[in-house]
Every structure is written in C-alpha cells, then in structure tokens.
C-alpha cells in the first residue's frame, strides 16, 4: 500500500487480506530448520525464543530495523518481497542460507516450492516470486550451536536509518578456525550480495590480522555499489572494508 500511494506500484483494485491465515504466522521448529512465517513482525522476531536461540543475527537486524512503531507492523515476508538491496533482514537471511517458501493455488490445488534466498532476488524490488504466488515463510537451517553470527549496519545516525551498507557474517568456529563461512552485504549491489571471495579468504583460516585484512580487501573488491544520495560508491567500498574488519575483529 505505501508503494502504491507513492505511485511506485500500480494500484490493484483487488486486494487480498492475508492476516488471518494461521500458516503465515509464528515461528516453529520443523526438523533441522526454523520455519518463520511470512507475517512474523520484527517485534515478534526479536521476542521469539527460537529465533534468539538459533539465529540471533536476525534479532540483531530486527533490533536495528526502523522504529518501534514500524517494527510492530513490518513483517519479514514484506521485507523480503520488497527486495530492497538495503533491506535489513535480507542480509542475515543470506548469511543464514535461508530458503523462501512460496505457495500458490493456481487451479484450486495448493502448490508450493522452495527457493534458496540467494536466487530469490533479481533486482531492486524484483524477485522470483510469480504473480500468483505468495511468500508463506522463510526457512532457516539450524546449524551447530555456538556459531559466530554478526549483523552490522552503518547509516548516518544510530536510529531510524536506511543502511549506507550492511554486513552479515555467519561461521563455525572450531579452535579459532573458521568454517562454513557465509558473508553477505547489503546496499552495495542491485540485490543483497553473498560475498563469495570474502568467504574464500576466510574459510579454513585462523583470524589473524593478515587474514582479516585480506578478507576485507576481497570484500572491497567484490562489492559493486552505486553512487546515490545516501552514500557514494567510493564510501560504500571503504566502509565494507573498514566495517568488515571491525566485525571480524569481534570474532577473534
């Protein structure tokens, strides 16, 4: 609705209320993953014991999401479908290797499919979701306990801000060696971006100063931000470098 009011999306005379569909609500454990209903709000994410236990990185992102008033109504499904490169929950979902659960009922028959989140985003505001589909849930694999997870958001003020850049890191840490490293960046490309080169620079390594510097340099090289009025491309690259160093320093 806000996008339609702002003239960015055509007004649809037929609107469907999803709020009363129970399957779209709630966080539940489903085998070795967490199923987070698309209508779970930022506030609910922050308060969910399951989310807090298994993916605290989402709690961090929800905590830095807009304001209390917005957190009470904004849903994770809405944030994902909005597909803003700066969307706060998108970066952690990428770092968590989540899946998007889509459902449709084309001929009276309920069908569903799951799409890895890394494939879901196609451009600013554009996703793989077909016109007749809705996002029902996000599925997050439950990894080994005690992983390092961190979400970092940089804006020009501490509250109510849209990221100039954001960083999500998720990795196993065994005796100081990182493995299963996933790094994601927000607001540095047309879609939230997995940092494959950065991950490669970290995988199987001890976090020494030299490794951190190599990873940060790789990150600066692999992002491809644009100049816009929130930040220049140059500043975004610099911040990806400097802030990733800060995040990784916390992991040592």
């Amino acid at each position, binding site marked *: 609705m806000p996008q339609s009011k702002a003239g960015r999306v055509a007004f649809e005379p037929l609107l469907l209320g999803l709020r009363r569909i129970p399957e779209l609500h709630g966080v539940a454990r489903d085998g070795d993953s967490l199923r987070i209903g698309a209508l779970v709000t930022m506030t609910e994410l922050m308060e969910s014991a399951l989310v807090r236990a298994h993916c605290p990185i989402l709690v961090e992102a929800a905590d830095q999401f807009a304001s209390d008033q917005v957190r009470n109504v904004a849903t994770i499904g809405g944030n994902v479908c909005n597909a803003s490169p700066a969307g706060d929950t998108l970066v952690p979902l990428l770092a968590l290797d989540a899946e998007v659960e889509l459902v449709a009922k084309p001929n009276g028959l309920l069908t569903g499919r799951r799409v890895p989140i890394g494939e879901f985003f196609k451009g600013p505001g554009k996703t793989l979701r077909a016109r007749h589909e809705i996002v029902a849930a996000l599925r997050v694999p439950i990894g080994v306990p005690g992983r390092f997870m961190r979400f970092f958001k*940089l804006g*020009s*003020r*501490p*509250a*109510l*801000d*849209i990221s*100039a850049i954001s960083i999500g890191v998720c990795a196993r840490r065994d005796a100081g060696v990182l493995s299963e490293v996933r790094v994601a960046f927000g607001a540095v490309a047309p879609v939230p971006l997995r940092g494959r080169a950065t991950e490669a620079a970290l995988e199987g390594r001890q976090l020494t100063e030299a490794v951190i510097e190599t990873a940060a340099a790789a990150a600066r090289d692999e992002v491809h931000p644009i100049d816009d*009025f*929130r*930040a*220049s491309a140059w*500043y975004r690259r*610099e*911040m990806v470098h*400097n*802030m990733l*160093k*800060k995040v990784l320093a916390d992991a040592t």
Partner: protein
Amino acid sequence: MGKAETESLIGKRIPKMDAPDKASGKTRYIDDVNVPGQLIGRILRSSRVHARIKSIDTAAARALPGVHAVLTAADVPDQRAIGVSKDNLPFKGDVVRSLRDEIAAVAAETEEVAAAALKLIRVEYEDLPLLTDPLEALKPGATLIHPEREPVALKHPEALRPWYDPDNCQTGNIAMSFDYTQGDVARGEAESDAVVEDSFRLHYVTHCCMGVSGVIADFQSNGNLLLYSNTQVPFLHRREFAEVLGIDPGRIRIIQPPIGGGFGSKLDIYPFEPIAVFLARAARRPVKLIFTREEEFIASPTRQPVLIRLRSGVKKDGTLTFRSVTTLHDNGAYTSWGATTPFVMMQTFSSLYRVPHCDYHTVAVYTNNPYAGSFRGYGNLQATFAVEQHMDRLAEAIGMAPLALRLANAQNPGEVTPQGMHFKTCGLKECLSTVAERSGFEAKFRANRDNQRMPGTLKRGIGMASMLHVGGGAKIYPSDGCGTILKLDDFAHVTLITGASEIGQGSETVLSQLVCEELGLPMSSITVVNNDTDITPWDVGVHASRTTFIAGNSAIGAAKKAREKIFAAAAKKFDLPAEAFALRGGLLVRADTGETLIDLAKFLRSMHFSEKAELVMTSFYYEPPSHHQDKEFKGDVSAAYAWATQACEIELDTTSGMVKLLKVTGAHDVGRVLNRLGIEGQIEGGIVMGQGYALTEDLMVKDGRIRNPGFRDYKLVTAPEIPEMDISFIETMDGEGPQGAKGVGEAPAICMAAAVANAIANATGVRITELPFTPENVYRALAAARAQAGQRAA
C-alpha cells in the same frame, strides 16, 4: 482567601500554559479548523525547473464534477508580485524558475477530487538553461533568471573578486548586495603578525515545523476577508495581503490557530496564501489549503546556502587586527526576507569580538534552486561558523590557547562598537570562562590534541564557539513595538490581550508571568488572547528573538498602569498615599508592613461598580530605545544584545567518519531567567536544531530538484543522538529588559556547527570548512588529509 502565594514568580519553573492541551491532543491546529461550506485547495507546481510555459490546458479539470474553481495566471490578471523584491507572482504564467513554481490551483469539494483535478491539467513546457550554482549564474553570458528586473548596481564590484573579474561577469543575476566597512583593512593587515584565509561552504537545511504550512481564506458576507493563518507576523501580513489583493488592509482579519512551529519560516508570505484567497474569491466559498509533508519540503523556505571567503589577522600578543569577508548567497529563484540575512551576519563579523578593521561585501545571486527564507539565527549560524573557526586558526597561528585569544578580544559591557552597537550589558567573558571551567576545556583540548597522532580509531575532540545576537528587538521596520491591553474583571481575573504571537516558543506563559508578578496574582488568574488582528493591538511580529523583551516590556507597562489605577483608588479609600500600597498574593497590602487591607477581587468589584469603572482596561504601547541603522549599516539597532558560549565534546570514529556528539556545555547571557523551565526548553531545543545543522540535516538539491523530500531521508536528530547538556545562565540584569531579561530564542542554535567544527579539528588535526559533518563528508576529509600528508612525506 485561597491566593496564598506571595513569592516572586520570576526565575521559577512554570509549565507552558498551552502544554496540557497539546499533550492531550485538545489543541486545534489549522488542519483541525473547518469552516462551513469550505472547499479544499490544491496547487499544481511545475514539473520543470526552468522552462517557458507554452500552454496550460485546464478544460478537463474544470469539467470534473466537484471542482468549483480552476485558476491560472490568465484567470487572475490582477495578481501582484510578492516578496521582498516583488519578484514572485503567485501564479507563474510565462516562465517557471524553480521546481516549486505555482502554475495552477483548484478548489474542489474534497481532497480526492482536488488531487484528481490537478492530474487533469496539461502543461506544455519549453526548457530553458538551468542555473543551479550561483557561481555559474555569475559567469559572463549566463542566462538571466529575471530578465524583467533592473540589474542591481554594485557599489563595490570588487566584492566579486574572489570568484570573478567584476568587469566581466553576469551581474544581471544579482538579487541583492550589501557592503559594510569599518576602519581600514589594509592597515589592519599591515599590522598583523599572522593572517589566515579560508573558504567556507554552508548547505541547505529546512525548518521541519511539525505543523505544515496552511491557510483558510473565508470572505465574509460584507466582503471582508477572514484568514486563518499560521503567520508569525500577522500585522505585517495583513498589510501585505492588502497590497497583493488590492484591498483595504482594514478589511482583512487574521486569526492564528495554534501554530505548530515557525522558526522564521512564516515571516514571508508565500504564493499559496494569495492563491487560496483567489480560489475563495472565484469559488465564492471558503477555501482551505494545507500542504502535504512532501510539499512542505519542496515548497517551504530553506536556510541560505552561503559561500564565505574570510581573511583574518592577529598580532603576536593576541590582538585581532582585521577581518575581510565576502559572501555569496544562493538566493534561489525569488527573493524573500532570507536575502537580508547579511544584516545579521555583519554584526557577527564586525562586533562579536573587538576588531578594529573590518569589511564585508556580499551578493545574493538568483539561481533555479529553491528559494531561501528566514530561519532561526538569520545568517548568524553561517557567519559564526566562519568567524569561530578562524578564532581557533588564529590562535594556532600565534601559538596561543583558543580560550585566551577569545578572552583577549571579547567585548566588554559599555562598549560601543565601530558598527554602532552599544553593549549596555555584556556577559561574553563570563560565558567564556564559565564554559571553559565547567567543561574542563583547556585540559581536554590539550589532551585531545596530543592524542591526534596516537594509535586508535576513536578520537575525542572539544571545541568552543561564542555568539552575539540581538536580544532587545531589532529596529528594522518603522516601529519595533508591541501593544498590550489588560482587562481586569470583577473577580480579579486578568485577560492579557497582546500583539505578540505564540508560535510554540512559550511567549504567552512568560508574558502572563510578568503581568501576574506586577499585580501580585497567581498564574491561574490570567487568560491570554493573542491570535486575532481584530482584537489584539499592533505588534511587529515574532522575529529577532524579540517577543519576551518587547512584548514583555509592553505587558509590564500595561500591568503597571493597572496597578497605578488600583493604588489611586486605594489612596482615596484608605486615606494613604498611593506609594503606601503593594499587591501580593491576590491581596492589596500595605507596602511597609505587609498588613492585608482588602482582597484584591473585592476591591476591584467595588471599583467596577463605582461611578467611573474605567479600570476595565488599560493599554500600553512599548517602543524600545533602539535606532535604525544609517546608510552604512551603522547604528544601535537593538535595545540589548545576547551572548553565549558553547563547547561541544565529540567522539569521532576515523574508520567511518561518524561523529558522536557527547556533551554540550553552554553559558548564555540571558539578562535574567524569567521562566526557568521555558528557557531550558528553548535552549535545549536550539542546541538540537544546531546539532542537526552541523551533523545530520541536509536538504539535497541536485539540478534544482530536492532529492530527499521526506523524513526518511532528511535526517533530523533523533532521541538517542541528543547529547548531555550542561547549561549555565549568566544573569547580567539588563537595565532595559523586562525584569532584566534579554531575548534568547535564536541564540542556542547559533554556535553549534562552529563548535563541532572546532572539536573535529581538535580530535583529528583536520579542519573541515564545509557542512554538514555527515560520516561520509568527514571520512572523505580525513582521507584527503591523509593523502596530502602522504604526498608531503613522499
């Protein structure tokens, strides 16, 4: 008797009288006012920045059911230009010069119909060359933005020298210029041991009043015009509306519903106001026209973007020698009061510190940008940003501490400056020393400086700045006065009818306090009427931090007259001289013994029902003892001057450029504290406004278009960023001020950007002369300084 309070009200913490209504949602702002039969007015603004209008087709809009009037310039042949230079026609018929330009307007039954009608209006344009940089607008051969205007004759074309050859540039785009000289700058420069020169660039910010602009135009059956308006200068606007509409000012009545903030933005009239009147005239129905928030960002005024070139000198012993200033103001497409901010900037350049030789030349240049208006501080934030950074630069150049240099050149009480300002009271030195002591300035300054080159990415900085601003009105108009009427009823309830407008600054509370103090009554026995030109006596309006001082003196004058009448009647009744009485705690008492003679309410009743019940009203008009400036801008324009010093402590993250404001230590010469709660609120609010100017707020204008017309991307300071504040009041007890007070409305916002700039320099050794200090701008400046240092080392 239930009125036991006998203590003085002065200096107490008194909650604002309008606070309960505002906090409980009872206040009815202009958007809540609905007049029977009203239509909704909306304006079609240009979609081009600079273009010739080839055609406007309103046929489809006119045909839309529910539309009562559609107007363009062609429909209002009698429209007249508004603004300080009368260069702004409400409806633009031939050329649009900025994105906010008004092309057409509709009055319709509902908001939805009005919006739909706007979409049906077709405008054909032919683009003209864009001029969005004042330096481009001065280039030889630049397009003239107002070819119809006579070019301004420059008295000192040399003023353009920093940027252009004065003999070979486009002076036709100059909207206004000012030239001021004291002493002989060349002599001052010859006497200097150190000279510094810098360029400073100040950006666009806007007021962000919580209440958006709006007006309701309602013609009465007798043809008189009733305007519900958010103006902060109702009496001047009444006259201006009359001129624009070609009607007798006596037939215009302005009612001000409670105003959701002004901060100077409501000093000018804007095209939307006459347009609402034209719509009401055409539709023969009242028309309500309220901005959307986006429209407020696009079509309300801004603070002046200014380019300042400043050259200053000092002797080895710390004596300032000269200051030479040129400023280039981006006027935008039309001229508003904002173009006259050099009046105020001049005072800071010439008189904040003692400087024997000073010249100041300035031009305001037309561009196709949004036009700037008046904004709290009126140029002083910009001037102080430059002057106070130079105080630090000069101190550094001669190896003196910044505090010592300031103290050595600070004004003293009794001083008459070369510009003719007479500082009858002046607390600048106390402000400086109080702030230095309470913030631990000198030790922190040295420690931070020593820490600049140490390892670590978090740097602390402390910086200070001072300010001078008018604090006793400003004699700009023929009169700088204000009238008061007091009505004392037969139950000793007082109605204070004042010309002074309440725009959220707390004037009605402080004026009530002053009256109750004179009459020995509690705050519960007073009501204020201050929003209707048919009722209230004349006042020049809310500007120049004048209301407490001017309207306060006027209110006191009326209260004293009332008291004299009471004492004269008491003298007869009690057979004592008039001097023998006093009013305390709602009682008439003997001044010497405090013995109660009679309840004031009872005595007033007896006066009411006596033969000559003339006590019902007293009126008093106060005109401050200030003077108009002469043609060289010299003269004692204010009855008093306000002073302040603020020190800002910051933490700067060199890896991101993020500046966190930790603490502000301020000392303000306010003459005297009248309402402690009110003045704290005023100062805290001003500090936060100054903080936004320094750190976060940035109205981004590119190619004449505003890129962030909303609160998502126009970043006001939010609660977690508000720093710790330590505010001291320096009470110099001004002889002319009401109970000794001076004006303080604008003062607290003025120093902040300069103090933060000095703190950044203290933290990093890098001086940034361009606002705002957003993380990217600071980071970029640090990177540039590192690159430069690297080059030097290589």
